[in-house]
């Protein structure tokens, strides 16, 4: 009696999986919806980071400098140097400081408070709009949001230089401005006053002007869109976990697996088909997402394939556990969430600045996510990422092994 080979049995089981998956309308719909959602979310997110700070100032910088010309001259500055100072003030925007210069302190206060709107024309002219008074939106201009501003008294430079103690500088800020920015503004004013007063600062300055911790990404900040890439890939893996768990639990609850087990097919064939199908499905869709968001480059594609493959195996292992244990749809959703939410946390941690907490780093998906982030955002190569991928494979051994063990036990107990 000739019996079919393992390969042909597994191929038959895979074909059946594909039919079953394609006929599961709920998960097919969820998969397509998630694909559309994640790709749309990616392209809707800003792809640049605005590094400039908008600062309101009253009176205008040029007025302040003109009023202080005598002081500058007395300090030994040549007229060319004073002109240079004025030019530097005007070109502050190029250095990331967007100055909104207003003549009157009352206007600055009203702007910060939101009572007045500031609009800037293409040629740099500022227009104030009182919306409550029914003024129309200026045409050919864009609105500028000013969250913080400094109001200097008239003759500020000469007053400070002469050591007048009653010189009052007001820093205006709205409630949304972080305290760090407010503090920075106060420090800026205090330091300017010290400089103008000709006194030494009461603190020693480090030799370097700025100390950057980690990679200096000034001018090439990571946008939200870029940060989303790993999370999008993980989102699709999450949906595939649900889908695969559903396929497994249907097979277990309806006992169709028992019918398979009384044919020449063995438990090994069943587990192999679930492993191959689950991993291939998740890998395929993860790669589609990465492709649609343009994550692949000539140098990182193999890294991304490897990272998504490892992630796909992890989530397939989880789906086996969930599918074996889930008694019904709700129970399955609960278990899937219980297992997958911790696995997705590292993907969220990328969205927030700073390095991840130690417990996040201990999660199984962290090494894979780290590799994905480094490969998609920071152009890292195999040379630096192979230990992370190896760590991910270690977790695969744990999660996938657990999935195989639980599913095998379940099938054998039916």
């Amino acid at each position, binding site marked *: *009696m000739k019996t079919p080979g393992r390969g042909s*049995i597994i191929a038959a089981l895979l*074909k059946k999986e594909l039919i079953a998956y394609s006929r599961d309308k709920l998960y097919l719909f969820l998969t397509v919806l998630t694909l559309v959602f994640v790709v749309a979310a990616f392209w809707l997110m800003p792809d640049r980071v605005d590094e400039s700070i908008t600062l309101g100032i009253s009176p205008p910088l040029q007025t302040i400098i003109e009023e202080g010309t005598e002081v500058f001259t007395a300090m030994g500055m040549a007229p060319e140097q004073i002109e240079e100072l004025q030019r530097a003030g005007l070109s502050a925007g190029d250095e990331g400081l967007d100055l909104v210069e207003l003549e009157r302190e009352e206007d600055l206060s009203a702007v910060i408070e939101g009572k007045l709107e500031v609009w800037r024309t293409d040629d740099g002219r500022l227009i104030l709009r009182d919306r409550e008074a029914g003024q129309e939106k200026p045409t050919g201009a864009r609105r500028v949001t000013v969250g913080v501003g400094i109001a200097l008294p008239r003759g500020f430079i000469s007053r400070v230089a002469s050591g007048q103690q009653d010189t009052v500088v007001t820093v205006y800020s709205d409630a949304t401005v972080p305290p760090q920015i407010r503090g920075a503004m106060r420090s800026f004013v205090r330091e300017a006053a010290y400089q103008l007063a000709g006194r030494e600062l009461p603190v020693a300055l480090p030799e370097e002007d700025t100390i950057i911790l980690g990679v200096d990404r000034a001018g090439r900040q990571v946008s939200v869109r870029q940060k989303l890439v790993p999370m999008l890939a993980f989102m699709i893996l999450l949906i595939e976990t649900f889908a695969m768990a559903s396929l497994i639990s249907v097979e277990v609850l*309806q006992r169709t697996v028992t019918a398979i087990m*009384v*044919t020449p097919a063995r438990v090994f064939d069943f587990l192999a088909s679930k492993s191959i199908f689950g991993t291939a499905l998740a890998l395929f869709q993860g790669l589609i997402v990465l492709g649609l968001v343009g994550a692949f480059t000539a140098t990182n594609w193999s890294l991304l394939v490897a990272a998504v493959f490892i992630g796909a195996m992890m989530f397939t292992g989880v789906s086996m556990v969930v599918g074996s244990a889930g008694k019904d749809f709700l129970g399955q959703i609960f278990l899937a969430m219980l297992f997958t939410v911790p696995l997705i946390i590292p993907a969220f941690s990328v969205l927030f600045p700073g390095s991840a907490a130690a417990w996040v780093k201990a999660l199984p998906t962290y090494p894979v996510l780290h590799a994905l982030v480094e490969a998609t955002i920071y152009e890292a190569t195999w040379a630096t990422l192979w230990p992370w991928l190896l760590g991910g494979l270690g977790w695969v051994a744990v999660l996938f092994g657990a999935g195989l063990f639980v599913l095998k036990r379940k099938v054998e107990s*039916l």
Partner: protein
Amino acid sequence: MTEPAIVVEGLCYSYGNIEAVKDVSFQVMPGEILGFLGPNGAGKSTTIKILTGQLNPKRGTARILDREIGHDDPILQAQIGVCFEEKNLYLNMSGLENLNFFASLFGIKKPDSMGVLRRVGLADRAKDRVHTYSKGMRQRMMISRAFINQPRVLFLDEPTDGLDPVTAASIRKTIKEEAERGAAVLLTTHDMHEADELSDRVAFINGGEIVALDTAENLKLEHGTRSVKVRLREGDDVREERIVLDEDGASDRIAKLAASKDLMTIHTEEASLEAIFIALTGRGLE
């Protein structure tokens, strides 16, 4: 001399402390239908699960087609067909897809799935998904799936349970055809009529033990009460009398009644399998 297709000796199985199958022994010849008759929980399905490799026996041996069970044996599995009590079909696949899938697991390159579906009267619904089938149609699908590999040994667990008489009769006819083809059939049921109609031999199983095993006729002769029922006219009324043939003077009494002008009808009475089962076990089949 034809070898038995199924040989079971001293088979035992327990779920924890509960002994489900106790020292069960029997044989089934090719082309024979052995009816396993017993109430729910008697050990019928457990015996089938052991013989189809789903459970490993705690003690005893079983050989099917001269191959020992209890090990992963694709050669043996390729020659058996199983119809489960639960309708474990792929509901999102059509009847034809279900059969083609299982045929591929048996390594059948060009299965005659349509032919099999025609036999069970499902050819016109072959391409419809199984979730649209009625209960009877699903049961016929189960039977057709068990036949797809033309098995030499068939295990049928309650194949007509809960079906309407027409569908049940259609399924019984198909089972008989399989036996005529030469398949050894082990049929579990708690339907005494089905066991009587289909089985060449019947095994009564109760509490995990086989309490009787023989042809239905022999069981009735051995364990049943032979009697005749006589209807007599008494004036304007009709009187019924039952005469047990094994009692003393029964022949004379029958002869006397037969000669009477008041005799209306006389019928022989045969013991039912259920009555015999109750007599042997002290409990019913439900």
